[in-house]
């Protein structure tokens, strides 16, 4: 019998539906936690850029605190720690909460750097055009900051997906917990953990490639929403038209100058 045949002896077809459930669980943890961490991270970043110093201080304490505690400790604190003082969270809530708290600290640093990397002139140009503060942020600062933040954010997303494996410690029914279950019933640790690692790789590698492609598309200024695609298509058509003569004197409501600008 060859080594390879000797290595793979677990009846994987028996575990197919369990593995699929575990995989979906990993993805749910990732999606919910990343969405939460991104929102909270953005809020913390904005607080850190606030003009009010107590808010800045609060945000700084939050970031430094959770950046400097191991994720595993945060998981134990939220699940076992809070549980011991009668704040009992279910596994999914505790797991997501831990990941959100931990990753939002990192994301807030990435977002803060990105937002403060946008030149003040951009805000001023927006204000000078009569945009509201919210519009300046939403249409001028945020889209540019997003471009700067994307590479770091993408790294964090992949890291978070892998980070869900630590939830094995609270039996979160995700991939790593499933791996432990299969191992304990088959005693084939090498084979099981190789397969599970391959599964993580199969999730993470395409994800990071996809995110890289997204980064490139955004950097190239490609329209990502159907609305912007439509707008640019109409613009292209209008720009290509030969101007009607009546259109030319549109600058001010005054008669047309004799000659046109070159």
């Amino acid at each position, binding site marked *: 019998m060859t080594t390879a045949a000797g290595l793979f002896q677990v009846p994987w077809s028996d575990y197919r539906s369990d593995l699929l459930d575990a995989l979906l669980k990993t993805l749910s943890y990732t999606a919910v936690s990343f969405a939460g961490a991104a929102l909270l991270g953005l809020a913390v970043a904005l607080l850190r850029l606030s003009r009010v110093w107590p808010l800045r201080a609060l945000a700084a304490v939050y970031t430094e605190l959770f950046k400097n505690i191991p994720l595993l400790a945060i998981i134990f604190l939220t699940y076992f720690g809070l549980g011991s003082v009668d704040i009992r969270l279910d596994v999914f809530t505790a797991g997501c909460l831990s990941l959100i708290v931990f990753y939002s600290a990192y994301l807030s640093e990435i977002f803060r750097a990105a937002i403060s990397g946008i030149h003040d002139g*951009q805000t001023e140009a927006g204000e000078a055009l009569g945009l509201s503060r919210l519009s300046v942020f939403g249409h001028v600062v945020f889209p540019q900051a997003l471009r700067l933040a994307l590479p770091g954010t993408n790294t964090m997303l992949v890291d978070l997906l892998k980070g869900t494996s630590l939830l094995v410690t609270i039996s979160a029914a995700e991939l790593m917990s499933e791996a432990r279950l299969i191992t304990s019933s088959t005693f084939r640790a090498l084979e099981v953990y190789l397969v599970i690692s391959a599964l993580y790789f199969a999730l993470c590698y395409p994800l990071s490639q996809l995110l890289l492609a997204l980064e490139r598309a955004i950097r190239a200024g490609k329209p990502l929403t159907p609305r912007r695609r439509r707008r640019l298509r109409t613009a292209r058509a209008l720009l290509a038209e030969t101007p009607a003569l009546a259109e030319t004197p549109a600058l001010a409501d005054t008669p047309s100058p004799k000659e046109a600008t070159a």
Partner: protein
Amino acid sequence: MTTDAVVRITALGKSFDGRRVLDDVSLDVPRGRIVSVIGQSGGGKTTLLRCVNLLERPDSGTIEVAGETVHSDGRTVCRDLARLRRTVGMVFQRFHLFPHLTAVENVMLAQVKAGVPERTALERAVVLLRRVGLAHRGLAHPDQMSGGEQQRVAIARALALKPEVLLFDEPTSSLDPEATREVLRVMRELAREGMTMMLVTHELPFAREVSDWVAFVDGGRIIEAGPPADVLGRPQQARTRAFLTTYESTAVVGA
């Protein structure tokens, strides 16, 4: 009250960290006229200009725009800041186009946010780009355009909301001579069409050519003001003469 000054600045004062950058400055920009502010860098010209659309808040004095008091004695009395800024267009030295948007979207954005329907805003943006000679660059992003092209898009952007007055903050100071010519050509065109403009510039020959009124600012005060032929041709004040002499001796090449 009876004159139709689009911008009326009265006894303006402003300090930064105890340093007086504007001191009792009064200046009118009548409708359809072009007023140039000249002077050394750091003399307060740009601060004065930035007070008009309240990017900078003065400590004292009054600013009126289109007949409405917007700032008085260190207090903003303008209720609708957005509306003020739509009345006053601004062109910056460093263009400050939005780099994530194409030229045509740069010109559209403020219109859409002001409630202009998307299609109308787009059509107007295209017309404006055509007017500054850049219809063929409408779908380019700012980093794909030359400085001169960027500044012309910035002018189109400032015109998009049909402002009553345009502010220019050293619009050609970061441009090479060729790009400067392109931008000045567009500005000359605007002047001919009767656009009201307030212009901070180092291009003295241009200021002399297009302006109806020139103010020489130094140390936060207006030292001398009047028709360009007087201020630039027969300056009365020693400081104005000194400035013009320095300018001539350093600007030989550009002429």
